[in-house]
């Protein structure tokens, strides 16, 4: 195998090179450790750009594939099969972009056990990239489950006060889902011709009742990860307790593993069950949007507020996916990226404020714009992007989702989109409410008067995200073009199965 022609292997495993170097650095050499981690993750980003350059957007199939037999188990081939297609390319780029940003954000925030932190962080990156690229179910499961371990330590070792509770809850919740998925994977692999996704989607003909069961087994794992209401209760705890960089990756990338899972497994493998379940799943998404929006409004802890806003945003993604309409699915995928950018940026800003004031309580703030005008203005852009202001990225995703859902045949009623639109208004309400309480009005606390505005490093951290926020908002077609052919192919599989159903 010629390594030069396998960019996917490079992009997946390059972080391990950084881990290896860091292992041999002394724990006291914090600077060297940080720079090694940063350079490694930047190199991974560079590699993912290389992948993008090689990627042929017009081709709906998995590309740049690496397919190496790993071993056989009782007649089943398990392969090391990686590939990238329109469904995963943007998520790959999102992961590799947010990783260096998150690492750079820890420069001042993580002072203790820097070595361990960076090792776990880079390991997490391997797992995340692997999840989005794996095309063998067992390989996917390995990456999926492996991400739990570094995340568990990131929250448990560098988290806030209730970190042990939060990290255990995170681990157990997620594992509960993935164990059922493992049963599902084994069942599909044994009864329907192996573990390779590319061959499975074209050959598996699973009877409807079995599809329903498998849809639930896989769906639960993904729904917990997303999280879909009512399985969301681990998320606010994990977010509140996680260190900033952990929150950024958790919100930005980890949650997308769930929505991506629906896209990669449930839709193509169990299309008939998908069509039958679509209105119910979409309804759960909408409940999530409205419920999380209301709960978010009442939060005093700004990090918790943003955590609930994540649940609401991912409700939109779920609605878009299960509207099973070209526009809405494209919008949903774009919205995954948008949410990663906006919420990631929000968590970063919250982290910056926390480093200055050591609290997340909104009561402790107020009028911060007067003290830190640069941070205030950047925060405003990010907040508005999260709220879906036209011209910024959030609008494009939500608009596509709602338009698609409005005319969706799978949902069968425009009311889904109608009710969900309320969520857009509510998002504006709680996000602007937050912005007002933190940045506007008079400065109510004396200790806030002396806060320093953003440093150059902090601005550098946010700039790439801001560029993308505007870029996606103004010229979304660049990004949608990458997604469209793959979505078209996916939906043709689903609708073909739908015809068989009628």
């Amino acid at each position, binding site marked *: 195998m010629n390594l030069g022609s396998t960019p996917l292997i490079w992009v997946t495993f390059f972080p391990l090179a950084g881990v290896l170097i860091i292992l041999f650095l002394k724990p006291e050499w914090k600077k060297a450790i940080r720079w090694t981690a940063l350079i490694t993750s930047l190199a991974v980003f560079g590699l993912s750009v290389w992948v993008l350059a090689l990627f042929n957007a017009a081709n709906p199939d998995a590309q740049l594939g690496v397919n190496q037999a*790993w071993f056989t188990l009782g007649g089943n081939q398990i392969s090391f099969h990686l590939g990238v297609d329109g469904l995963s390319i943007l998520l790959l780029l999102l992961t590799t972009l947010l990783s260096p940003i998150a690492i750079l954000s820890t420069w001042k925030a993580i002072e203790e056990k820097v070595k361990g932190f960076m090792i776990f962080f880079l390991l997490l990156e391997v797992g995340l990239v692997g999840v989005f690229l794996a095309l063998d179910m067992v390989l996917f499961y390995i*990456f999926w489950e492996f991400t739990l*371990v570094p995340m568990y330590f990131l929250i448990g070792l560098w988290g806030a006060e209730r970190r042990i509770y939060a990290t*255990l809850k995170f681990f157990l919740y997620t*594992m509960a889902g993935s164990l059922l998925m493992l049963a599902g994977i*084994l069942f599909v692999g*044994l009864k329907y011709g192996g573990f390779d996704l590319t061959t499975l989607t074209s050959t598996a003909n699973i009877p409807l009742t079995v599809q329903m069961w498998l849809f639930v087994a896989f769906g639960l794992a993904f729904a917990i990860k997303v999280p879909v209401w009512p399985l969301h209760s681990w998320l606010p705890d994990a977010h509140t307790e996680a260190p900033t960089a952990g929150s950024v990756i958790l919100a930005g990338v980890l949650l997308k593993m769930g929505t991506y899972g629906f896209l990669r497994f449930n839709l193509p493998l169990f299309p008939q069950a998908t069509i039958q379940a679509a209105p119910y799943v979409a309804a759960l998404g909408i409940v999530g949007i409205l419920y999380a929006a209301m709960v978010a409004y009442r939060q005093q802890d700004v990090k918790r507020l943003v955590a609930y806003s994540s649940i609401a945003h991912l409700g939109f993604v779920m609605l878009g996916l299960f509207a099973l309409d070209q526009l809405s699915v494209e919008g949903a995928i774009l919205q995954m990226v948008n949410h990663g950018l906006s919420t990631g940026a929000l968590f970063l800003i919250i982290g910056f404020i926390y480093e200055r004031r050591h609290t997340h309580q909104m009561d402790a703030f107020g009028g911060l714009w007067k003290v830190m005008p640069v941070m205030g203005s950047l925060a405003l852009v990010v907040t508005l992007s999260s709220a879906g202001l036209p011209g910024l990225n959030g609008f494009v995703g939500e608009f596509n989702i709602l338009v698609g859902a409005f005319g969706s045949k799978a949902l069968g009623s425009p009311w889904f989109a109608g009710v969900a639109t309320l969520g857009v208004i509510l998002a504006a309400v709680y996000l602007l409410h937050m912005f007002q309480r933190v940045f506007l009005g008079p400065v109510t606390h004396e200790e806030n008067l002396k806060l320093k505005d953003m440093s150059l490093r902090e601005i550098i951290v946010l700039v790439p995200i801001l560029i993308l926020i505007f870029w996606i908002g103004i010229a979304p077609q660049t990004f949608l073009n990458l997604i469209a052919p793959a979505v078209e192919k996916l939906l043709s599989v689903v609708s073909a199965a739908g015809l068989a159903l009628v």
Partner: protein
Amino acid sequence: MILSDALAILPLILLIVWAMIVLLIDLWIPKGRKGITALLTVIGLAVALVLTVMQANSPTSAFSGMIKVDGFSVFLNILYLASGIAGVAISFDYLNRMDLQHGEYYVLMLFSIAGAMLISYAADLIIIFLGIELLSIPLYVLAGIARSQGSSEESSLKYFLLGTFASAFILFGIAWLYGAGGTTNLAGLVTAIPDGLNSAGALPMLLAGAGFLVAGIGFKVAVVPFHAWMPDVYQGAPAPVTGFMSVVAKAAGFAALMRVLFIALTTETGDVTPVLAAIALLTMIVGNVVAIAQSNLKRMLAYSSIANAGYLLMALVPYSNPAVQADSVASALFYLAAYALTSFGAWAVITMMEKGEIQGSEFSDIAGLGKKNPLLAAALSVMMLSFTGVPLTLGFWGKFYLFRTAIEGGFIWLAVAGLLTTLVSAYYYLRVVVMMFFRDGDPDLKYSFWASTVVFFGALGLVVLAFFPDMMFGLATKAVLLLK
């Protein structure tokens, strides 16, 4: 006995003769230099190991069909002998520290391994019984080797009383089976029983025999409801003895069960599948749920060992389905190997913690280990993740294969239930990690070079082998091909 018979079981004969020689030599070794005894023991084990490996490609039958040397016995014997070496390694410094350094300790270990080996060779019920006794009696003594300590004595007595009780069950079961089939040969039973059924009363005899036998072996491997002795024995016995027991006694018990199930009870009338399914389900649930409530590491590992017996049994449930048999045995063997690595690593850490009179093995005693000894704590975390079945450890592939077998055999409900109990297990295994890394404390760990070596070797093996599982899968599968 002719020469070819003796050659067939050469590793076993060597081990027993060597044990007696070591016992004699030990008389002349002064108290402070028992390292020589330990070394001699390891040499004996290593030579037997080499001889066993040489047997790998020449399956034979000996002693008029009572002994079978096949891939199955070779795989397990390698496991036992390697476990013996690991057992000596985790014992040596512990025995010095606790002032228990007696030569007979190692000799008893050798005899016990010989018993386990005899079971793996067994093609006859009588041999199985002999093997179980030869395995167990030294273990009763080993459990009580710290005889000045009440807990050790209690452990030994409990183990002895319940163990002999179980042996009686096994013997009784053998008698019933002999009554039904007129033979004690495992393969002979299969051919004899259909005829025997024609005469009135043979069927109840067969079922009673199978029932007693499964119950007796169930005692030995500690599956629910025959598990009650285990936590007390595990907690009271000296830590290295428990570590050794948790691997060798368990593997030997399962070896006996597999020989009986796959050879003698495969006929439709002798099918005990529903019973096994119920026991497996109960064991997985009880073992894991009760483990949560433990505050002592040894007791937690005891319940974890019960739970693991449940998982192993789950793979054996579809044993009467010819299409699944090969996977059923191979997955159990594979899991046993992964379990041995994990278990020895975990117990090795406890041998370094233990203070005598079961002090030093509470959860709170390892608090802060991550700070004090990060490498050791990291290795123990690998063990815990492997027990849980998190990917990139060998434990994951072990569970993967077991659950796959259960699903292949059509026992989807059992596999799903088992997977959910794995979730429960994640809680108590992770508590160890939480204690070591997230809580502060000052653990009193008596460093031992040999025990640490076992820990690191185990952790490394668990991670590295996880990337190349096909090697071990291959060995396990080969063991099955030669089983019949």
